[in-house]
């Protein structure tokens, strides 16, 4: 059975306007605005265990970033006692102690904040750049599109990590605010600057596809303005895959941040970050493997949470899956 046939079967569930009246099932017409594609997608999402695992993990780490005190079991990441150096995990100190003798659970928990801040800021910048440039390139096409696409290609030629690495290395020697500080803002901007192209291409191809659709032609034929067409017709239909991409990208950026920090160009001590913890822990991996294990585990879970949510979102929003 083809997709179209399956779609047709679904359509016929609603016998709207049947002229016989007999075949029409009782339909609840009291509810306002029922069954939009968004609410259908939500219904789909709700039934997807992948989404729930991702969402529970995501909320868990989000809370961890917001109120780390609650998760650190009363320990302060900065009150250390060298006598506890590299202490093994115990009932009181679940993750043990690091080389300086600080409570490791508190350190790992406090690391969530930087990771999430960087992930969210970077993705917001990526979305801003990607949607803006992609919508312009796709909507206007022609020469504008050619120029913007080539600019994106130039950025594509620089791998994300390499580009961010170079920028963060030379950043402190420039006078540009934020970039010269090596704080979370600098890392986020460095990652966004070399990671917006995929979002742009996604938006561009969506806008081009929607732009040539019949309903946009219908709106143009009735004299709707360019702004109206962009806002009412093109963007609402182009945004779904971008949302999916953004969700997954939060995870990817968090991993990239840890990579940069591990390589020594990301966040600097005394900032608390999983990348720094892994970097510091690798020297004692044989004597105290928990120093690498715990931040890596939490990092992986965080990245997975966002990737899982993104995957579930894709399944829910992709109309071809819906039959």
């Amino acid at each position, binding site marked *: 059975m083809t997709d179209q046939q399956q*779609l*047709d079967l*679904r*359509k*016929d*569930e*609603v016998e*709207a*306007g*049947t*002229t016989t*009246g007999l075949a029409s099932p009782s339909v609840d*017409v009291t*509810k*306002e*605005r*029922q*069954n*939009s*594609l*968004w609410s*259908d997608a939500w219904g789909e999402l709700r039934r997807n265990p992948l989404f729930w695992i991702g969402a529970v993990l995501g909320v868990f780490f989000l809370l961890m970033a917001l109120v780390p005190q609650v998760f650190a079991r009363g320990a302060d990441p900065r009150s250390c006692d060298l006598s506890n150096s590299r202490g093994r995990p115990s009932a009181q100190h679940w993750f043990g102690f690091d080389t300086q003798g600080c409570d490791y659970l508190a350190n790992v928990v406090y690391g969530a904040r930087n990771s999430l801040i960087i992930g969210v800021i970077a993705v917001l910048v990526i979305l801003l750049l990607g949607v803006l440039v992609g919508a312009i390139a796709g909507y206007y096409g022609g*020469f504008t599109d*050619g*120029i913007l696409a*080539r600019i994106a290609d130039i950025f594509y030629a620089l791998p994300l990590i390499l580009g961010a690495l170079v920028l963060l290395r030379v950043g402190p020697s420039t006078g540009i605010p934020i970039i010269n500080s090596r704080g979370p803002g600098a890392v986020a901007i460095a990652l966004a600057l070399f990671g917006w192209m995929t979002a742009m291409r996604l938006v561009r191809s969506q806008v081009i596809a929607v732009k040539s*659709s*019949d*309903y946009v*032609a*219908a*709106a*143009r*034929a*009735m*004299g*709707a*303005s360019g702004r*109206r067409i962009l806002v*009412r*017709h093109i963007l*609402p*239909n182009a945004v779904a895959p971008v949302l999916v991409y953004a969700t997954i990208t939060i995870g990817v950026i968090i991993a990239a941040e840890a990579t940069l920090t591990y390589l020594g160009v990301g966040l600097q001590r005394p900032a608390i970050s999983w990348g720094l913890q892994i970097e510091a822990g690798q020297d004692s991996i044989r004597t105290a493997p928990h120093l690498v294990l715990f931040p890596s585990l939490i990092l992986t879970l965080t990245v997975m949470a966002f990737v899982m949510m993104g995957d579930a979102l894709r399944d829910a929003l992709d*109309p071809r899956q819906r039959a």
Partner: protein
Amino acid sequence: MSQPSEHGATAASSLSKSSPSKSSPSTEAAPGAPTLAKPAPSGLRGSLGEPLLEIRGLQKHFPLTQGIVFKRTIGHVRAVDGVDLTLRRGETVGLVGESGCGKSTVSKLIVALERPTGGSILYKGKDVARMGGRALKEYRREVQIIFQDPYASLNPRMTVGDIVAEGWAVHDDVAPKKGRLKRTQELLDRVGLNPDYVNRYPHQFSGGQRQRIGIARALALQPEVIVCDEPVSALDVSVQAQVVNLLEDLQDEFGLSYLFIAHDLSVVRHISDRVAVMYLGSIVEEGTDAEVYGSPSHPYTQALLSSVPLHEPHLRGQKDRILLQGDVPSPADPPSGCRFRTRCWKAQDICAQEPPALVDRGQGHPSACHFAEARTVVPVDAE
């Protein structure tokens, strides 16, 4: 110029009652609904038969380009190359042709989605290409389009009510802000949809129902002309007939004029008063349905008609099948002279040199063939 507000009032109120549909509990239950008599068809719109759209020598050439940023033009696709057509008030002109003949481009040119390369489209005597701001906006209200694909022509993220009412956001003089919901429901009822479904989304409807939504959207602006671009070819047979009947009823009721573009020769004959046959960007024959179907004089029309399968067992085998040789030439490189000569069994030297004009050659209707000769291809059903 028509008077949108005055006419609007009559058309709107007529919506609520003249509907033959029985499916609308809400309108029937409302005793206060205005029940004005149906307006005389096209009473306010000027006389029947006056030309509304006059298309003269219409051309659309799409450039073929190479290059990525700096594009070079290496040729042109002559999608529409010299089309003449007149649409009069209250009539239906059918435009038939096979895929790639340019008939859809003609529809896009008429609703000003594309700019013509040459020739002109005159609407009520004014050149559409020269219309500016306000005049063009008014033109876009008066000339509406219905698309082929009922799945692609409705925005999936808008409710049916918003889709139908969208035109009023652009042309806010057509319907006062107050009562737009009621007007939308009347329109839905008129096209045979349950008016309670204004808040539903397109994907909840079947193909035929979606096509009705598209028709309601076009009707909302009280147009004079509706360009129907293959409006029933994506629908199931039983649903096709419902939509054809609806279009016929709406025409009688509102005095609409249709340009009905389709590849299905039977549907075109059924709905059209006059028929134009298109081949490779230009019109090869034109006339009333009886002239074109009963005594086609262009070889292409004859071949086309001879290929249509008949539905009556007793007529089977009673027509000569004219099989055409080869494929349609590329519109980027059309043959010289007569476009059809490469596949024509009548072709002579003159056909390669001189393009035949679309004029009456003694058949009673225009035909673009140097050797036009009427021939009965479709057997007449004697039953």
